[in-house]
């Protein structure tokens, strides 16, 4: 599992309140702090860097415009990731297409965007993993990305997705069962 990112929610809540009052420095601090994890969460969901970059920008535009609606009832990161998840699902509804960008996945060869290695075997393997993740049902994929790649605990994922902890656990179990069949066995 990738190392869990370290966030300081109390400090973030203070920054969010300053953003609500139009403080650009606080906004820059929050963007700087979360841009990498937000971008990668979206990228692992949509499988395309251009689309992920666009959605990530939109997430931070919403942060700027809606920071006043953050009441501090949850951690700031939970609130922010709710926006991330909503934007990802909205993208899916709008485009109604499968991910990694989708037409590319029908091909046997990895698209340029996935050619992360010069080693063809490693590249193919990475592509197979990307494809398998992209083919997971939406909610399973979101739960898996938040858990495995972002290291978020089930409790927080449940708050982000607006569901129960047992439902999150069930989503992750089903996602991993599908992936094990495709990638490990």
């Amino acid at each position, binding site marked *: *599992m*990738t190392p869990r990112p370290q966030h300081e929610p109390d400090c973030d809540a203070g920054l969010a309140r300053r953003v609500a009052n139009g403080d650009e420095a606080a906004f*820059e601090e929050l*963007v*700087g702090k979360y*841009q*990498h994890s937000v*971008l*990668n969460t979206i*990228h*692992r969901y949509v499988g395309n*860097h251009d689309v*992920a*970059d666009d959605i*990530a*920008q*939109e997430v*931070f*535009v919403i942060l*700027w*415009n809606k920071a006043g609606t953050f009441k501090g009832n949850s951690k700031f990161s939970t609130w922010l990731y709710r926006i991330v998840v909503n934007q990802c699902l909205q993208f899916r509804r709008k485009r109604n297409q499968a991910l990694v960008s989708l037409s590319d996945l029908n091909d046997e060869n990895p698209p340029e965007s996935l050619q*992360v290695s010069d080693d063809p075997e*490693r590249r193919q*393997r*990475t592509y197979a*993993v*990307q494809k398998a*993740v992209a083919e997971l049902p939406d909610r399973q994929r979101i739960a898996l990305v938040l*858990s*495995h*790649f972002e290291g978020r*605990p*089930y409790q927080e994922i449940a708050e982000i997705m607006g569901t129960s902890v047992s439902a999150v*656990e069930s989503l*992750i*179990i089903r996602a*991993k069962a599908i*992936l*094990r069949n495709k*990638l*490990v*066995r």
Partner: protein
Amino acid sequence: MLTAFSDGELTPEAKEQISLHLDACADCRHELEELNRLSKELDRLEAVEVRPYFMTRVKQRIADRQAKRAAVKVLPGWVRRTVIPVGAAALVFLTALTGSYLGRTVYRWRSSAESGSTPNHGSAGSILFDESSEGSLSRFTDQLLDGGKSE
């Protein structure tokens, strides 16, 4: 339970119970091995880097949205609520009226050309409006424009 175990989601007590069970159960040990292998497979998906000028682009997008909103807000409320909808409706009506008038005119040219009464004024019109017919909107346009004299 093994998924939660491998994700580090269990309490220390539950973790200990699972560990004890794993010592005695080969099937569960195998399953846990598979989960660990899957975890390594997933780690192949490396993180992407944030592109340069990300912050600048976000700020530009915010500025663009604010400019758009400001442009709309320049108009007084009653203009936004009445003049814009009425103007849009009038535009749609006039477009339909003009289209209908032009369509009927071209149709007449084509009919005249076919009957040989006048030279063919527009072959393009003949082609474009080959399937045209005189509908109720055309008649309405005529009535509106020439008081129905053409009927």
